[in-house]
């Protein structure tokens, strides 16, 4: 049976979602994303530089919408209104594509989600027929509320954006997983392959990774590592791990020993 990730009306083969920020150039980003095997690739919306090198390669020429599902984010937005406006521009930019990553981030050094504005923006976007994948804190009550509003995926942080600290509160992620029916995808905080596996072993439906790949010494190799980490974690989750014990339990039979 094929393992499929279902997010709203979309289906994906890969449970690894990747970002396109922080790469040296578009060529490196393209190669790393290909190696990751990801179907969903995030992007940001920014003002176009006018009159400066109009032939400069565009992200969408490398990460093409016919090959990948582009997931525009609202990074940099600090209010619900700005986030909604950004999503509307992204929908126009991508010819009516309605899947978005909502993130309303505080102006603090933690880049922690502003959940009040996030909730407001989520309500406005769902009403405007967007399919909203929402970045949020690991607060189980807020995650439940975001699902109730109609978000198609809830994406709690594992640790602050770009920190690479790994999952800091697996118990909250577990609690969110127990409470929600929509996919829970860890977004932010993964530093290396084992962090991604931990998230998948908890039962997360996917992991969204940018910095851990882009800032690795060899991003293409790390992208491959993440691909396997996600697959391994998912398989281990499905297989169901053995119970933990306090003492040893010999693997080889203790009867039939030679004397």
């Amino acid at each position, binding site marked *: 049976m094929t393992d499929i990730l279902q997010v709203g009306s979309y289906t994906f083969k890969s449970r690894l979602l990747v970002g396109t920020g922080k790469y040296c150039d578009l060529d490196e980003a393209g190669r790393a994303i290909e190696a990751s095997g990801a179907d969903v690739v995030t992007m940001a*919306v920014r003002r176009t530089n006018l009159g400066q090198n109009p032939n400069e390669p565009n992200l969408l020429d490398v990460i093409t919408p016919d090959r990948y599902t582009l997931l525009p984010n609202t990074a940099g937005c600090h209010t619900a209104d700005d986030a909604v406006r950004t999503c509307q521009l992204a929908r126009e930019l991508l010819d009516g594509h309605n899947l978005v990553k909502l993130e309303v981030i505080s102006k603090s050094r933690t880049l922690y989600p502003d959940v009040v504005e996030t909730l407001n923006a989520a309500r406005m976007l769902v009403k405007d027929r967007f399919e909203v994948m929402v970045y949020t804190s690991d607060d189980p009550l807020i995650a439940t509320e975001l699902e109730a509003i109609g978000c198609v995926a809830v994406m709690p942080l594992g640790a602050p954006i770009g920190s690479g600290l790994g999952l800091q509160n697996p118990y909250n992620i577990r609690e969110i997983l127990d409470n929600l029916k929509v996919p829970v995808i860890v977004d932010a905080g993964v530093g290396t392959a084992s962090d991604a596996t931990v998230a998948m072993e908890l039962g997360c439906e996917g992991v969204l990774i940018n910095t851990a790949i882009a800032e690795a010494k060899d991003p293409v190799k790390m992208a491959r590592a993440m691909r396997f980490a996600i697959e391994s974690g998912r398989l281990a989750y499905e297989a169901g791990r053995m119970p933990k014990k306090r003492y040893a339990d010999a693997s080889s039979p203790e009867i039939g020993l030679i004397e």
Partner: protein
Amino acid sequence: MQVSVNGQIEEIEGQSLNSYLASKLILGRRIAVELNGEIVPKSQFSSVMLVDGDVLEIVHAIGGG
């Protein structure tokens, strides 16, 4: 007349949005345009005439997480 484009004031002749974008060599590229806070669908670029005081935001996709 004066228009604001991505936060910069510009002195331009009266013209359609289509010809303005063509003059900036970005017509046909993957962009989205907002005029005075409202999205302008690509199909309406040639029918929209720019007037004094218009505020344009022109965006494209870049790398992000």
